[in-house]
């Protein structure tokens, strides 16, 4: 490659980085390769923060990559005449590009805090709606029975088929029997590791009905990929009807084994 042509070619290659980078993000939603549908009350805030950071970092990305391209284009040794500028830096510039990013980053951190607190710290004062116990490679569910209390003999046991009421706060008590797992509900913008020996509360309010995936997001062994569950969000009436029906079915088959029913939480 001739030296003159070389500089032009390589500069344009570096220009392709921001161009194709932005194009990828612009085209992806058209192919549905984007944030999946959100049906939770808090999810809008998370998606909003994602898009806000995307816009902010996008501007920095485009600006810095364009500068890099422009400098390569303009200061190509084969094109530019004379010598390089003899300069060791600029105190003013250093101060500017330290203080502005520092303030921006600090603002970003503070700006996140309220949403984080909503999702992970401001737990609603209520009894658990359901206990989810992860194990290799399934989600074991335990609903309080007719007495409304978890850990009593009339609890309802299910696997992988989580039902929850819409438009209500739900509180899940998350546990693990064996190794680490992670309770990931992509459409509800919920993720929480399940840790053996810990009881971790998870709460949210779904705002739409429908059926969605439960995914395990923490490596838990060879069957990690198939640790799949489904969550059904339904109206209070449907939820109560389902609960009653399932409860009757469990009573009809066999009583709950004693040791499981009274196992310590």
């Amino acid at each position, binding site marked *: 490659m001739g*030296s003159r042509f070389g500089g032009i070619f390589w500069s344009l290659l570096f220009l392709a*980085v921001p161009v194709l980078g932005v194009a990828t993000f612009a085209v992806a939603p058209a192919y549905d390769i984007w944030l999946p549908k959100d049906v939770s009350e808090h999810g809008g805030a998370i998606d909003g923060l994602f898009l806000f950071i995307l816009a902010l970092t996008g501007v920095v990305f485009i600006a810095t990559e364009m500068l890099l391209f422009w400098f390569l284009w303009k200061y190509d040794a084969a094109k530019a005449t004379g010598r390089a500028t003899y300069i060791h830096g600029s105190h003013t510039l250093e101060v500017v590009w330290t203080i502005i990013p520092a303030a921006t980053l600090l603002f970003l951190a503070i700006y996140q805090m309220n949403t984080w607190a909503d999702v992970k710290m401001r737990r609603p004062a209520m009894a658990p709606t359901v206990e989810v116990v992860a194990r290799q490679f399934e989600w074991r569910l335990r609903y309080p029975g007719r007495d409304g209390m978890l850990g009593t003999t009339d609890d309802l046991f299910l696997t992988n088929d989580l039902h929850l009421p819409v438009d209500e706060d739900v509180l899940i008590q998350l546990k693990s029997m064996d190794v680490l797992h992670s309770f990931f509900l992509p459409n509800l913008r919920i993720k929480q590791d399940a840790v053996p020996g810990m009881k971790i509360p998870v709460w949210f309010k779904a705002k739409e009905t429908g059926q969605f995936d439960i995914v395990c997001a923490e490596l838990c062994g060879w069957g*990690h990929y198939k640790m*799949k569950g489904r969550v059904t969000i339904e109206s209070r009436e449907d939820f109560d009807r389902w609960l009653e029906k399932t409860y009757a079915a469990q009573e009809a088959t066999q009583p709950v084994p004693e040791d499981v029913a009274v196992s310590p939480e």
Partner: protein
Amino acid sequence: MSIASTVSPGTAATLPPARKPRPVSEFLSTYVFSKDHKVIGLQFLFSTLLWFLIGGLLALAVRWQVAWPWSDVPVLGKLFAQEGGQMSPEFYTMLFTMHATVMIFLVIIPILAGAFGNFLIPLMIGADDMAFPTLNMLSYWFMWPAFLAFGASFFVEGGAASGGWTSYPPLSTNTASSPGSGMGQTLWLLGLTMVGVSSMLGSVNYMTTIILMRAPGMTMFRLPMTIWGMFITAVLQAFALPVLTAAGFMQLSDRMLGTGFFSPEGNIVNNAIAGAGGGQPLLWQHLFWFYSHPAVYIMILPAMGMVSDILTTFARKPLFGYRPMVYSIAGIAGLGFIVWGHHMFMSGMNPALGITFMVSTMMIALPSAVKTFNWLGTVWGGRIQFTTAMLFALSFVSMFIIGGLSGIFMAATPVDIFIHDTYFIVAHFHYVLFAGTAMGVWAAIYFWFPKMFGRTMNEFWGKAHFFLTFIFLNGTFFTMHILGAVGFPRRLADAYHYETFHHLQPLNAFMTWCAIGMVATQVIFAANFFWSMFFGPVAGRNPWNSNTLEWTAPSPPGHGNFDFQPVVHRGPYEYSVPGVEKDHLMQTDPPNAAAAAAAALAH
């Protein structure tokens, strides 16, 4: 003593040894159990490049399964002869565990500190060797038990470790929980410990050498950025490694002696009560990341340093903001010790602690930003020579911008709820470690190859290697961002049976084709490397007209490095000094050279 001899000028003047017939034992002590830092550096280089190939092939096998789950694997399928050529899910978990393990512990860390640290530190500070040559030799030979442990683990019952490179207990401590948690995991822990011993020996040596053995006139603030990167890396290793070593022994003890540091009471794995209990799985995560987060910087700071030196050479311009560059490396290292919790936002750690770690993590983006702006400042107003080394160094800057910015998403705790453990993070760390560090390493190979072997690599094939690698790496890794935006989880042998992810197979197939192209491209590199070693054009002492001390030594330097005592008169980045005839002033050029040149011009 080598320390005394370098500090007093004159006595260290070493002449190339006279040629005479050598017995076998001398051959062994010169080229195999050598105490010469350059030979040790090259030993590290060749070993790590070989493991780089293995790690790359493991990655291809991972990509194969992600793109076309349960289809017959070419070559590898026959090699492991499982289920008629398709891979089992436990084999897949082993593949990504060992891909990461090999790349991190046997490639990136030893290639930066072991290969380039060893080769460059004495040369760039003007010393005849390291402070402790025997320790230095041991640091290489302690890698071999690690190579053997990791290598052998592929062939033991149950296969190599498959608990992820992070080895989170109880999956990794409980032998019943996964096939790879048997012998494979024990060998993994032993290998890790040996890598730690090697790094520790190296780190002590680097710190001592850089502090005590600099040539006359080489003050700390005249050190090239490469040396600053290596120095701070050595400090990080010295302070962080003991924690990992201790944690590794605790995990070994959980596995072999029946202790329960990381397992809680009443844990039931595979329908059996497991272990003594009384421990906490999160304890391992804290200890592991207390090392492994600083290790992320161990894996990039030396590359940042080398890239700074290469950029200045081929921009023919002083480094923009030398001191801010040094301070920001130190800042990254300092802050690097208080951000480990950002790996644990979803772990069950107290969410209030998550807020603290979010703030410290956001702030560590600051020194990285300062470095990026200064690199741009360095290129601005330069006279850019598009050599292969320069292209790789420029791509380091361009790609590090992406890897740095995507880190902000994960630092933001609420956003991390969604993207944690998805391909978004896979994109992020591959942009830092592959598109960043590996590209920096290639820049360094093309740049210092003449000093290592006395010949230059072929530029045309170098540029072809750069161009294809650059295209394919972005095809492979940039698309991972949008995959992560869907929430596509990492480490799943097959995600397409989920409603959320079923439509992502074509994109994954595209990425795998790019990955295959990327690995295939390295054939060009390997051919160029070995051909140039023997047949490349002979390089003089200073083929790039660079300023630092290694370019004053012969190429390749003999034992003892310099054939004169280097005395340093200025910083390493005096390019295009006005009034000086040549466009660079080497660190050793006498102080009156500028005046003399100006006078000569006046005549």
